[in-house]
């Protein structure tokens, strides 16, 4: 088994994992809400029972 | 008409179509043999080839099977034959079993050719002591593959982009068959000093797989192909 890297070598991996995670979820949520805003005006209120 | 009789009629119809069109013998089998030759180019070492021969046989089976499944349902959807069968009140369970039976027969031919190719091209050695194991492996794996192929082929039939959808859906599902059948075949060949007794537990997995997907397919096929 390969020895554990030093802390300073690990940091890029740690930062990358946080950026990927939050970036991917953020991008997904952003696209979803943008799509919702785009089509909402065309949908009659009866098909939006949650509002 | 009993489900079994429907299944036999449908299987006979499919095999008759395949026999007359000669697509399996003239295109699919040459394709499978070509894949085996290409593996040899890629791996380029006799020892490696002998060692991985069982896995390559099954890998080639699965790739060629994609073509077979596409064909099995292209025949049905071309003139809306599948819908016609359903309108005529033919039980979907029977259609499923029949198409699986026909697919299994074609797969058996394909696998035999691939096995011979492995012996001729890769110097894989068949052993008398592994013969029973080998036949059982091929029977169990072929049954499972035929069920899965029919189930997902029926789903993808008539859909836009089915050529690309089918491998995406089917290959992950048949992964256990690839693992199980390869290990059992290795045991039957005695690859890497494996003894044939090591193969039998994998047969259990293959049979379980075939039973689960056979039962699931018979129940669900009607809903999947229903328009």
């Amino acid at each position: 088994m390969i020895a554990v890297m030093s802390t300073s070598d690990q940091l890029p991996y740690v930062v990358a994992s946080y950026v990927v995670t939050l970036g991917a979820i953020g991008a997904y949520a952003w696209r979803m809400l943008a799509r919702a805003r785009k089509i909402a005006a065309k949908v009659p209120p009866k098909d939006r029972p949650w509002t | 008409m009993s489900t079994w009789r429907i299944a036999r009629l449908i299987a006979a119809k499919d095999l008759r179509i395949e026999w007359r069109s000669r697509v399996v013998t003239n295109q699919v089998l040459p394709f499978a043999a070509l894949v085996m030759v290409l593996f040899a180019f890629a791996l380029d070492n006799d020892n490696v080839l002998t060692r991985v021969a069982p896995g390559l046989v099954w890998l080639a089976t699965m790739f060629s099977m994609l073509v077979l499944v596409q064909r099995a349902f292209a025949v049905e959807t071309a003139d809306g034959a599948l819908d016609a069968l359903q309108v005529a009140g033919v039980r979907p369970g029977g259609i499923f079993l029949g198409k699986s039976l026909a697919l299994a027969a074609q797969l058996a031919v394909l696998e035999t050719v691939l096995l011979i190719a492995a012996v001729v091209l890769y110097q894989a050695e068949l052993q008398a002591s592994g013969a029973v194991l080998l036949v059982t492996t091929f029977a169990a794996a072929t049954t499972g593959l035929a069920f899965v192929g029919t189930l997902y082929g029926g789903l993808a039939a008539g859909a836009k982009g089915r050529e690309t959808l089918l491998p995406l859906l089917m290959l992950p599902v048949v992964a256990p068959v690839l693992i199980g059948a390869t290990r059992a075949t290795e045991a039957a060949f005695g690859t890497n000093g494996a003894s044939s007794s090591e193969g039998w537990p994998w047969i259990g997995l293959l049979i379980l797989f075939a039973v689960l997907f056979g039962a699931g397919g018979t129940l669900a096929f009607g809903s999947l192909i229903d328009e």
Partner: protein
Amino acid sequence: MTPTDTPTSDTSPIDPAAAVRRPTGTAFTRALGVASLVGIVWLVLFGLFLSPNDASQKAGVRILYIHVPSAWLAYLAFIVTGVSSAAYLFKRTRSLTWDRIAGASAEVGVLFMGVALITGSLWGRISWGIFWTWDSRLTTTAFLFVTYIGYLAVRGLGGSHQQRARRSAIIALLAVLEVPLVHFSVKWWRPLHQQESVAEGKLSGLMLFSLFVGIVSFTLLYVWLVLHRQRVLAMEDSLDDQGLDQALAERRAEGAQV
């Protein structure tokens, strides 16, 4: 890496214009959104700055605060998809809402699982020196990922809503059949690797708290995402129906002219 790239939601009162500006939001989802956003800010604070390095894994342990929650959410999402699909197929609870929840949950699950696979391989690179190992848990996870990508492709096949719902529900249940088979076959094939759980059980104090913050905030985020996505899917279905109604009306008008 500021948390602003996650969705924000303020708390202005509802008026018709706002309903279109935030068409899938309600008071509940707004509260949920604020809570998960606060949770993620906490997660970044505790995960990256306030918690100490692990004795053996050093900084690598910080990846686990997002890796473990996203993997857990991915599995939960697929369980939700399976249960909702069963609820759709069961005649007494048949409703397209179940189908949309199944679809929304699968989509969010694929997102979380993709994230879990990426962060997991980054963690593996740090701790094992390799990105990937053919361990049964990892391999099953990868197959689950591909299977649900296939599930989403089946949802996009077209046809009526009912057809889509029935087809995808069956595929979801077949996936439930497939996953244990893959898991056990891989386990038999490669029984050796069991070192992946090194990290768990050794965390303590602030580290355990950071993991806890990660799990809670990701769970809230999951619920928020599924609720919104499910509503967007409902609106898309409604649009489809309108398109169909309009086409029918046009054909009828043509017929009347002749």
